[in-house]
């Protein structure tokens, strides 16, 4: 399996993630889409590591997994906080920073 296919798959998953974040309004789905983008990146890293034999790329993939875990923890906390204050978790209703 060549590197080109791996990267193409990674790009596809990433684009699905972006499109999902833009289109969907449910915060949980948003999270899933963000995870998809993370993992698309991880896939690209790991694929490049395998093709080139660089250890650093694998290390970065681990780093991304750790950051993603922390991000989920913080993000879920924020969603719960919003839900508590607004009894609603639609991201389009969270626009108090509007200029």
């Amino acid at each position, binding site marked *: 399996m060549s590197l080109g296919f791996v990267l193409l798959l990674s790009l596809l998953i990433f684009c699905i993630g*972006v499109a999902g*974040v*833009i*289109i969907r*309004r449910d915060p949980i789905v948003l999270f899933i889409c963000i995870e998809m983008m993370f993992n698309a990146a991880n896939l690209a890293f790991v694929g490049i590591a395998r093709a080139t034999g660089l250890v650093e790329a694998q290390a970065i993939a681990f780093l991304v997994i750790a950051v993603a875990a922390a991000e989920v923890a913080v993000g879920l906390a924020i969603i719960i906080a919003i839900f508590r204050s607004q009894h609603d978790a639609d*991201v*389009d209703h*969270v*626009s*108090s*920073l*509007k*200029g």
Partner: protein
Amino acid sequence: MNLSILILFIPLIPLLGALALRLLGTRMGKTVVGAAATSTVALSFALSLAALASLSGMDPSARHQVARFFTWAPGLGGGIGLDLLLDPLSAVMILVVTGVGSLIHLYSTGYMREESAGEYARYFAYLNFFIFSMLLLVLSANFLVLFAGWELVGLSSYLLIGFFRSKTSAADAGKKAFIVNRVGDLGFLMGLLAILAIFGSLDYGRVLPQAATVLAGKGSWATLIALALFLGAMGKSAQVPLHVWLPDAMEGPTPVSALIHAATMVTAGVFMVARCHALFELSATAMAVVAWVGAVTALFAATIGLVQNDIKRVMAYSTLSQLGYMMLGVGVGAYTAGFFHLFTHAFFKALLFLGCGSVMHALHGELDLTRMGGLRAKMPVTFWTFLVGALCLAGFPLTSGFFSKDEILWEALASPHGSALLWAIGAFTSLLTAVYVSRLVFKVFFGAPRDRHLFEHAHESGWAMALPLVALALLALLAGLLGLPHAWSSHQPFAEWLAPVFSDIHAAEASALPPSLPWLLMGLYTLGILAGAGFCWWLFVAAPGRSDRLYALKPVAWLHRVLWNKYWVDEAYQALLVDGPLALFRWLWRWFDQGLLDGLVNFAGFSAQAGGATLRLLQTGYLRFYLALMALGAALWLALVFRLL
């Protein structure tokens, strides 16, 4: 006493008097205030007499005493400080200032009697302060002290013109005098700075004797300096076109008009030109300007004086006219003659003003001569002394005015700087002088009283006011003896006394004019005076109503209107110098300041606001929108990096 200490005390005593009266005067009571103020000036007068005596004891060429009391700027051209100079010229001036000054102080004690104690003390403090300033001016030994005195008399003049401070017209007149004098003083200051730049000193002793040699190779600097100084003299001596302040200055108390605006301060310009004659002599142009400004002022003011109805204003225009004579005199190089007229004029014009004050006092402040008449019998002392003053002013033979005016007119004709035209203007003005002064005398003292009520209440003034009138009348009559015409006497004490001061002038004595001419001219002037007085008698006294019929004639009425409105000079100044610039500045304020400048500032603020409001539309608050923009941005960036576009 040491002479230099004496010189210091002459101005110092009135200054101390002024300070004491201003600080403590309200608590002293009117009698003490009046006595203290009068005695300080009288003491100064006594010291001036002593100075005169010690000066006349010296050799004529050594009559030049300079005393320095402290040095203010040691590094500047031999040092500049409080330097006072006593020489024949300043000796005459201090005698006039303190002599006439003490008489007028005495007169004021009666004239101002009805003021409150506080006002009374304030008045005398200012009057004493004026005497100090004037003495400083005339005793100056360098241009800086002269300038200080010059400004201080301006200040005292301002304070005294606006003395009745609850009157708006008096306050305005004070401001007008001060502001018009700024124009002249600017010129004076420029002259001073030019002298300092060229001579490196302001000391008379280092400037005037060397003026000819230092300025010889400097082109037109001599003319520029002389004209700049003369601009100062024009302001202070109220020469055309800076004359407008003097008639308005009559808003002040009458003794002030007599002392400051007739006898002393306004002659400072003539004194200054005489003092700086070494500079003026260097430039024929400057001399011609001085002479012509003087002649024009003399004629111009005399014509206005013909028709005014306010007795003090008639006197004010007469003063302008006589100052013009003095300027004409010094302008044709006849410093002694001009200065002699200053000397005699100080007596007779102070006398006339005090006479006006006495009439006003008797008539409860009435100034309009159309409401007077027939006061001759009611006020004999005022009438006779006023008549003496009027004869002197008109230049009636054997009075002092006759001799001094005759001398000026003769020099205007005979001097190398003079001309027949200057003489003709002067001679015609002397005819006009006779007309306006006889009109005044006839209307005030002769004929039937025009206002019964005022006439009934008229009374002669008290001794404090009558005594100065008599003293000044005697002085006015006798002062002429000091300067008899050359044709009458070879001995002229006044000219001989001043000779050391003007010794540097080489008069072209050998005149081509026939020796009988002076006699002929004197006869001519006398005829002119008699004709003028006779005309006024015919017009105003012989048949009441004749003057009204004359004024009704069309050309006369037109002329009367022009003169009554003083040639509209005040109106022209108002339009050109006040309203015009005011309109311009108002326009600039509206269009430039409020329109352009404020517009630019407001535009800066507005554009920032508008830009912010537009950009704010991007901040929708929708997470998805931000992310979409971010993705779009990333896509564009990638496209640019990989050159896909």
